[in-house]
């Protein structure tokens, strides 16, 4: 059984005649410890898959099972302890009125975990900040630091799986590599499984061993890193995408 199993996932927004099908029949399987990429242009539905998995998209059909817990039928707290999400824009994903330390501690407090203060410091150090950053507000940090904090918050419940929604696209190019390397390091240290969404093939090829290409709500092709580097894709759309990123 795979760590992430998504079968026949369809997601739609709106109701009645205004209803729009955003994702159609997507199948994804990611093994434990793997990093799986999801690429495609804007509006291809790749972020929606992550949101559906986390229960942030209103209507979806199909089956999502992560770390052995069913996203629909499984107990919600247990599911959230297994999988967490990092959002795209670190300027919008940290509460402006919460201190950094409070933001990281909040998930642990909600789940009544022990040793909240110590673990907050451990997490801050794990992402390359210091204990003193606990008492900073988000607006006192740079974009890269904020995204690190968002990653620390996602790790606060010690999940097995991280869903990463364009984790670096809102950051400067020089900072992107830092954050990606941090993510790689955390995956190796903690045995995490990543499902990472990006429109940037360079990011995916830096991080992932396998990827799926999405177009207009459908997964058109799944391929490995070798095919990506050699450009030996089966679909014309994928070849265009690879050529465009060169």
């Amino acid at each position: 059984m795979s760590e992430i199993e998504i079968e026949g996932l369809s997601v739609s927004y709106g109701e009645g005649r205004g209803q729009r099908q955003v994702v159609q029949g997507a199948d994804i399987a990611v093994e434990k410890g793997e990093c799986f990429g999801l690429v495609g242009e804007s509006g291809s539905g790749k972020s929606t898959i992550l949101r559906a998995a986390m229960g942030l998209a209103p209507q979806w059909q199909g089956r999502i099972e992560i770390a052995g817990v069913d996203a629909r039928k499984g107990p919600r707290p247990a599911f959230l302890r297994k999988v967490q999400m990092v959002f795209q824009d670190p300027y919008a994903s940290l509460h402006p009125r919460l201190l950094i330390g409070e933001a990281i501690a909040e998930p642990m407090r909600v789940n009544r975990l022990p040793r909240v203060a110590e673990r907050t410091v451990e997490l801050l150090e794990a992402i390359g900040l210091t204990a003193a950053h606990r008492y900073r507000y988000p607006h006192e940090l740079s974009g890269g630091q904020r995204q690190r904090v968002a990653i620390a918050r996602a790790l606060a419940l010690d999940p097995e799986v991280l869903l990463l929604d364009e984790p670096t696209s809102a950051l400067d190019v020089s900072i992107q590599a830092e954050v990606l390397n941090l993510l790689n390091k955390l995956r190796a240290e903690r045995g995490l499984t990543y499902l990472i969404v990006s429109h940037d093939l360079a990011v995916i090829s830096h991080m992932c061993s396998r990827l799926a290409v999405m177009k207009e709500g459908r997964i058109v092709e799944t391929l490995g890193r070798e095919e990506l580097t050699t450009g030996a894709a089966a679909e014309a759309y994928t070849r265009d995408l690879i050529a465009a990123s060169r």
Partner: protein
Amino acid sequence: MSETAAPRASALQARLAELSRFARAFRRNPLGMVGLFIGLLLILAAIFAPWLATHDPYAPDFGGRLTPPGAEYWLGSDELGRDIYTRILYGSRITLFIVALVIFTSAPIGLFMGVISGYFGGWIDAVLMRITDVFLAVPKLLLALAFVAVLGPGIVNAALAITLTAWPPYARLARAETLAVRNADYINAIRLAGASPIRIIARHVVPMCTSSMLVRVTFDMAGIILIAAGLGFIGLGAQPPLPEWGAMIASGRRFIFDQWWVAAMPGAAIFLVSLGFNLLGDALRDLLDPHAVRRT
């Protein structure tokens, strides 16, 4: 013990740093400082009224009726020979009491209704907002009048009547703020921690509403003072011999042409205080309005 004390001091430090940053920005607004000064003046007058007063606010002195402003009566005396300066000082207590009572009742009610309405949406939103609309549809002073007529005149009843008319705008405001943040990623993030709606609302949504609420409250203080004075003027607010400013104007109305100071002095006090709160509100809005705030 010391382990828990140290981090608390630091979190406090972070908040104090924010506060002093805010204070520095506020100091750059001269009109805001004038407003703040007037507000402080009102509070100080209310606290120290017995020491600042030159006469007894209630004791009549028929020898000194309707004396123009001068050395004995700084702002003149009224038709019972009472010192208007002293009565205005004591009146500031009544004004502050009404304003505080209205704010501390109407703002929480409005915040609660608005946040619940905005966060849950659907039929809860529809029901709560239609109730709000009913209250908003009636002119404020009229509604307050009707309630005072039912409850009977008096300061507390006047304040409660104003509360009944003052909460709907807060509900609308809190709802709008809630709608703006309820799907923000930082709220989604706390949802993904498994937090209950109550916790999300109380700890994460409400703090986002407070700054615009604060601005609105400051502006409304001016309006509340005017309505309270209006109720006092028509005899439904504070009752004689209480030195309520509106009631004082009402008693001076009869001789407004010959003894202008009886009505003009409390009128000036009302004018000054509502101007002060308006200036203060303006300054706070410049600093706190989320629509004008730069992205940090």
